[in-house]
């Protein structure tokens, strides 16, 4: 620790002192500027950003960039673009993803089950960034709490991959 060094101020001339003193008084004009900002905010209720969450559950729209849980991009028939390459599995920093591949009739490697564990996922989005086929995305779902641990482990794909 040591003793604190007290910096001695250099003596200043009376003229310099007056300059500083009145300069400080003149600069207090900025207080009025600050006050004008807060008064403007006070009288503009449209600026309010707080959400009344449980009441506006029906109308609440999540921000488009919000990262909820991972989901698979599927078309109307439930087909996905996943090729079971496993890049997302390797990109995941905490092992929340397991891509279980299988073989189709033609003997080609396709996606069997896409295992995703929400309880260990940190919503970092590395899997989405790393996917070369754009097969997964983070959705806007933010009510992720469950009463049962089993619900956290989910299979994201409905159908086997087409490859």
């Amino acid at each position: 620790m040591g003793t604190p060094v007290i910096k001695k101020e250099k003596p200043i001339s009376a003229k310099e002192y007056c300059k500083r003193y009145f300069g400080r008084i003149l600069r207090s004009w900025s207080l009025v500027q600050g006050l004008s900002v807060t008064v403007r905010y006070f009288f503009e209720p449209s600026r309010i950003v707080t959400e009344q969450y449980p009441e506006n559950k029906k109308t609440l729209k999540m921000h488009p960039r919000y990262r909820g849980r991972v989901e698979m991009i599927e078309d109307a028939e439930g087909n996905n673009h996943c090729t079971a390459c496993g890049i997302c599995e390797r990109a995941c920093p905490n092992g929340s993803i397991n891509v279980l591949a299988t073989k189709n009739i033609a003997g080609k490697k396709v996606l069997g089950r896409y295992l995703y564990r929400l309880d260990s996922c940190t919503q970092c989005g590395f899997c989405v960034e790393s996917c070369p086929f754009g097969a997964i995305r983070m959705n806007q779902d933010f009510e992720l709490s469950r009463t049962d641990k089993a619900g956290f482990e989910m299979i994201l794909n409905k159908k086997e991959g087409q490859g």
Partner: protein
Amino acid sequence: MNSSIFIPSVTHPIGDFIRSNVPIPELAFLINAILCIIGICVVAFGAALVLVYVERKVCAHVQCRLGPMRLGFHGCIQTVADTLKLLFKEVYAPDGADKFLFYLAPMVLLTAPFLCLCMIPFDHNLQVANISVGIPLIIAVNGFGVLGILLGGWSSNNKYSLLGGLRSGAQMVSYEISLSLILLFIVMMAGSASLMDITTSQSGTILDWWIFKAPGIGIVAFIMFLISSTAEMNRAPFDIAEAEQELTGGYHTEYNGTAFAMFYLAEYINLVTTSSLATTCFLGGFLPPAIGVAAVDHALAMVPGLIWFFAKVGLMIWIYMMLRWTFVRPRVDQLMALEWKFLLPVNLLLLAAGAVFLALGWVLP
């Protein structure tokens, strides 16, 4: 026994009715005194309940939030719930605290705002005590505030409390000087130290209020009053006594439950008294804001003075709240420099300028 103490100084329909119908003057005095106590308590506690809510709402809207919204319409009974919670908490003092002073401090602190409220004229005949030395008495009674905070900080046996208490003592003693000088300025202008006389000296139009009546210097005096009274109330931006970020709450760190509620109550009643003082001294008290047009003035005069008074007090409170949620807290040395290097010289100059204005007859009587 000298019965002159029972002679009332303020006439009021209810008071006069009791005085003329109760045979024993002492009993009539007692009934009137109890009525006054009830009235003051209703104003004080009612205002504190409302103001805690209003403060949270103003703060929220300045910061683009909504504030309390759950309990009642827009959270309007939130304060009642908070008060009940505080009242039902266990009261205990920290180990090693001076128990007697620890519990005495909030009570001492509460005396000052209540005594001040007694001298405020709410309407033509709605005043508990019309004292001819009202302003000096208010200045004197404000000392209880310093005492309460110092006692609370000292007796808590906590370094944060002690630091907060000492800081606050230094601050309040310093700013009391400029506050007193401003009040003296008003006393000089009005020619009387009685709050009722100060109010009636402003009768006429808006331009007869002391903020405008003394050309130029009235507004300067009002701004000086705003600064020094904010410091006197220990409100932000001069809340270095509490300074949550550095002192975890200052002098009331160790208080909880009812004692803490009393500190909180004193803070908000102080807000009401100081706003009332500003209203009485600068904004014409209970007088309507007449503009000089006979028809309009007649309509304005129909509204009871009580409503005008509380409308003006509300405006003052709103100004204090906006100041609180806009400005940042100065350092201790900056705070002292502001008082001793800026406010005090300016106030002395103001006092001299007021005397010159009066001597030259620039202030209309």
